[in-house]
């Protein structure tokens, strides 16, 4: 077979193959077969070396034309096959759901605590912290709970077993703090007035565990001491907080109460948002939900920390984060917070 026929044959064969290129794989096979360095076209160029000199220009030109043509036709076939593939991809079932990934959340108690903190920080409160293993002085005595006083029964207390210190002494009387109020004392002991802080933290009560009480919970305590701080101002601050937290439609009720470290003292109720005050199981048919205790700092407390009650007055308040979270979401069992069932955690 002469060179010319071979070229013609290759051209025919290649053109026929081109028509069958459907996929990128087909295209690659075609390229390997005809256009690659070891492909048929390259072989023909190789054979050019053996033909007589005078035939070379004609055959060479023809071969080059065929190559150019095949290459350009191949390129368009290849492109077509790729867009075929894309169209193929377009047919993937997009109703298949996305891949499952871990979703994390902050604990609902954290969310409540952060929200409370945000509100008070925005009106000028700083933050302070104190130990959970607290001495009797800071947890009770300096807060005007005299020894042998029934006020100590208001909070069931865990006592800490004394240990030997390095010096061989026994530690004094320590408790697991029953409230964050001890931090008030620490703040005033270490800072001159004015002070304006909130004090979040974990507190403990020696109570049987049930759907309504747990051996520990979290509080946010607040304290503001300055010249001429009044009960009216306490009402203003708490009302602002409640409106920010529960919504501007919330109704508040301040009713007299008793805490050893405040005088006068009050409990704050909000109208039950479950039944809008009509009376339901959650509010025990009173239409009101208790959310915090508060009052004016008792002069005895000022004496303990060395503040002059004639110079300054102040208010303090404290609320339970669990309680507020239970109320906010209508959760009926406090233990859910500490079990950490992820089906619970994922709801918030």
């Amino acid at each position, binding site marked *: 077979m002469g060179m010319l026929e071979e070229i013609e044959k290759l051209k025919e064969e290649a053109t026929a193959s081109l028509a069958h290129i459907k996929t990128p794989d087909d295209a690659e096979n075609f390229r390997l077969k005809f256009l690659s360095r070891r492909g048929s076209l390259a072989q023909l160029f190789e054979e050019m070396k053996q033909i007589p000199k005078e035939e070379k220009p004609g055959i060479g030109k023809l071969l080059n034309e065929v190559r150019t043509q095949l290459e350009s036709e191949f390129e368009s076939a290849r492109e077509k096959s790729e867009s075929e593939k894309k169209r193929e991809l377009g047919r993937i079932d997009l109703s298949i759901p996305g891949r499952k990934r871990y979703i994390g959340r902050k604990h609902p108690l954290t969310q409540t605590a952060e929200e409370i903190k945000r509100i008070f920080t925005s009106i000028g409160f700083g933050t302070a912290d104190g130990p959970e293993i607290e001495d009797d002085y800071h947890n009770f005595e300096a807060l005007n709970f005299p020894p042998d006083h029934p006020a100590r029964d208001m909070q069931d207390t865990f006592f*800490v077993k004394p240990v030997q210190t390095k010096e061989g002494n026994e530690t004094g009387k320590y408790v697991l703090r029953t409230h964050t109020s001890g931090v008030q004392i620490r703040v005033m002991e270490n800072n001159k007035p004015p002070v304006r802080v909130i004090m979040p933290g974990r507190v403990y009560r020696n109570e049987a565990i049930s759907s309504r009480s747990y051996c520990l919970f979290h509080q946010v305590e607040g304290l503001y001491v300055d010249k001429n701080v009044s009960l*009216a101002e306490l009402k203003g601050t708490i009302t602002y907080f409640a409106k920010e937290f529960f919504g501007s439609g919330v109704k508040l009720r301040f*009713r007299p109460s008793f805490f050893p470290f405040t005088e006068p003292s009050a409990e704050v109720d909000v109208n039950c948002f479950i039944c809008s005050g009509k009376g339901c199981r959650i509010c025990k048919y009173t239409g009101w939900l208790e959310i915090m205790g508060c009052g004016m700092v008792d002069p005895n407390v000022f004496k303990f920390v060395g503040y002059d009650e004639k110079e300054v007055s102040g208010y303090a308040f404290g609320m339970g984060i669990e309680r507020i979270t239970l109320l906010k979401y209508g959760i009926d069992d406090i233990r859910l917070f500490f*079990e*950490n069932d992820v089906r619970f955690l994922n709801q918030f």
Partner: protein
Amino acid sequence: MKISRKWIEQLVDLNGVSDQDIATRLTMAGIEVESFENLSEKYNGFVVGSVMEVVKHPNADKLRLCQVDIAGEIKSIICGAPNVSAGQKVPVGLVGALVPHDQHDPDGKPFQLTRAKIRGIESEGMICSEYELALGDDKNGIMVFEEDAPTGKPLAEYLGMDDTIFEVSLTPNRADCLSHLGIARELSSAFSRKLNPKKPSLHETGEPIAKAAKVEVSDPELCPRYSARVVKGIKIGRSPRWLRVAVEKAGMRSINNVVDATNYVMLELGQPLHAFDLNLIEGHKIIVRRPHESEMKFATLDGKERALSSDMLMICDKDSTIAIAGVMGGANSEINPVTTDILIESANFSPSSVRRTSKKLGLSTEASYRFERGVDPNLTLAALDRVTEIIVQTGGGTVAQGVIDIASTKFAPRRIELHVDQVNRLLGTRLASGEIRRLLESIEIHCDKKSETIFVCFAPTFRGDLEREVDLIEEVGRLYGYEKIEEQHQTRLVFDTRFKETNNTEDLKGYLAGSGFNEIVTNSLQPTDVAGFHSESFVKIANPISEDMASLRTSLLPGALQVVKLNLSYGLKDLKLFEMGRIYSSNGGSNGESFAETEMLSILLTGSADPISFDRNGSEFDIFDLKTEVERLLKHLNLDNWDFIPYDSTREYKQVLKLFMNGSEVGILGQVSETALDKFSIKQGVYFAELNLAEILSARKKTNKFHPLPKFPFASFDLAFIVDSSTPVGSLINSLKSLAGNLFRDIYVFDIYSGSGIPEGKISVAFSVILGSDERTLNDGDIARFIENAESKLAKEFAAALRKQSTK
């Protein structure tokens, strides 16, 4: 405390005031009403019936057919009780009434009466037992009333149950309200109605009291006042209905006419009283003293033997102890069915002494509860007169002439100065002095004007809680009404950096949640063996709720494993969790504190690293996932200098790394050991890291300086070494890092391979190295030089052989 409206109404006129009004006004005055119940509603549809005729049921041997007159109508009622007979007055439930207890139901559930045919004959109602009416435990027959019970009278009215009971929750300062009189006083102020205390009338016809009995108080500090009366010749018996009902409605048990009378007066006036059988008082002499060494055991009237201590105050006769002062009487002197002569004690005891005694004995009584909170020392005589009146009225007897009254001092009202401007300053009000006076006098606090703006006030002895000006200010605020005090907003803006939060965790929690971790909050109280498992110096609780919560945690691990266990039990086995919380130590450390509390951060991985999807197979978490998370966390905090040091396995971990920063250990991470997992029956791998949060947060740079962006591109290339499989990859990296010196930019391990092509006992480790220079673009020669040096360095240090190279 239970307060009866009917009882209150004997002391103050509440005509036209609804139960709800009473509840609201008391609550808003600081006396919280938790709930109230109208008892008569409970007995709607019940009346007093008169049994006219009883015949046997024609179709049943044990049933009887009764004709019962309920005034104006005769009802035909079938009754199965053995004790029914003609002529009786009985409680009758009519069709539609709700019977409080079903006698045939094991739980005694209530049921509604319907018109029913019993063995062919219709019954138009039901004659009830005490149990069915929730008036007692007797199920053995129907209740039978006194003969003069008025036929047709609504049952509630006849029983004295036409009443509302308020459940009042009192704060410890309001001892004065532990009585109907105290509550009535508040209501008289709230509704501006006059208070009408009872004025008992007595006929003292017996011998002079000095002949009948003597009292000696040898410890006046613990017993500031002791008053007593003697009544002789009384008859002990069941109390009349009004007395029984009154005591029971207040939640106490009816005992006999004398004991009920003492309880009644305590509930009415707030003065605890005790009646002794006078003939059981040796020598008819009372001595108030502390017990002798030989008297450390005492049988109280509840039949229990109590261990005394020498600081307790006792009531004694000539020879022995007969009562624990202010707490409980003794079995040896109690009123009994044959008692005829009694001595009634009306005393005042020191609150802290009674409280200590009650705590020590673990015995709290209605009396001790009141004494602990403080009883009016001027109440003893009024209470004595009132109780004597009732005892004579219900049990007869002759009252001895006069009264014994031993008082250590005169108890006068406390004098307190009140400044009007101080009231308004603290409350934020503008109350006029006249208004303040009116409010205080409405609760019997007498006010004298000292000047235009100063009052001298006299706090009555029943208000022992009023000691200081501020206590009076609270009274003014409370009576004026907190709701009327207008809200004010903060008067002064304070710029203060002293209370800046240094270790804010909000962002870090947000980051971890965003990385797919659920935040958990766990109990910091743990069993002692669990706390001790992680550390020797742990904090123990002296009075734990249970052994499960007897110590404070020393690690966040057990709490987290508990959470894994719970979720596994619900089939939730793929978990990413984190917690921030304190661990506790009894080793206070260097700063002289007794105890130490350290803020920790834990993260936990268990289950599938890549939860189920349609096209990729999920692989389980492993130690490198944990290491990755810890590294990402540290990078998130902009930390750049840390080391992971592999350690031997511990009790808690089998693969374990410790995290070091600036030379100190700040955390541990690893695969949790089987020993630890077994305690929680966890069968799948758990990876846990516990980091010292405070230290990590404080290691953050105070300021983070900008680095100019690189001017010249980095060079990136791969190289692989064949080394002994025991060679730590980390050391290879460190060696390459130090070789690169200041050209080092980054390094990754992208393949670790053993098998075909690699000699037995060797591995091929492939690195991707990134180098760069601040002065120029690195060229092929630089890289070739680095690889050449790396080859010889690693060959020398690790007997490593360079495998292949390629530039990207």
